[in-house]
């Protein structure tokens, strides 16, 4: 018989402790780390995410719109839209300044689209990291 180990419940962290870092981390890639005085890591995150996003724009990547339809269409478009929006200020500036491109065929454009989405997804990882630092679960 397997011995059941009791999982240690981590205490709930008050929202005020982590929300500003996560929100700033969404708006400015690496911003949460800046707020938490992890400047070096913040700079690297800012450079990596911003470079990826700008490369995606320069490759004329497509920005997803949240369309629904069959399961695959919904998954791709809504998932892609969430990835794009996770880019924070980069996404907002792109849309406001009209740099978002129509969807066109070609391998460079396809790479650009993936770069834009993955830049947002990497920013989500950075936000999770900022949350863990703010919650005291990580150095």
């Amino acid at each position, binding site marked *: 018989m397997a011995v059941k180990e009791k999982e240690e419940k981590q205490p709930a962290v008050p929202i005020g402790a982590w929300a500003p870092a996560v929100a700033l981390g969404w708006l400015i890639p690496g911003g949460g780390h800046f707020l938490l005085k992890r400047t070096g890591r913040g700079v690297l995150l800012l450079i*990596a995410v911003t470079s*990826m996003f700008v490369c995606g724009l320069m490759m004329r990547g497509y920005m997803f719109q949240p369309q629904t339809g069959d399961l695959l269409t919904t998954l791709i478009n809504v998932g892609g839209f969430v990835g794009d929006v996770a880019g924070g200020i980069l996404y907002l500036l792109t849309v406001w300044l009209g740099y978002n491109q129509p969807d066109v065929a070609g391998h460079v454009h396809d790479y650009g689209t993936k770069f834009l989405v993955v830049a947002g997804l990497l920013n989500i990882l950075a936000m999770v990291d900022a949350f863990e630092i703010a919650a005291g679960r990580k150095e």
Partner: protein
Amino acid sequence: MPKMNLSHFEAAFLFSLFTSVVMGIVTKNNDRDRLHYGIYTFACFMIALFGLGWLMYFGHG
């Protein structure tokens, strides 16, 4: 905005580089481990890139 025309390899290289930097930073707890993990992730990307490239080359006939 200037247009960037990259080959498959150049695009995959940049993708690997940026992703490895972020993965290294968010995954580990000290700078030494972060650097090691970033390099490890980048090496894995490169091995997969060259491996799949040759696989497609030979698979194509």
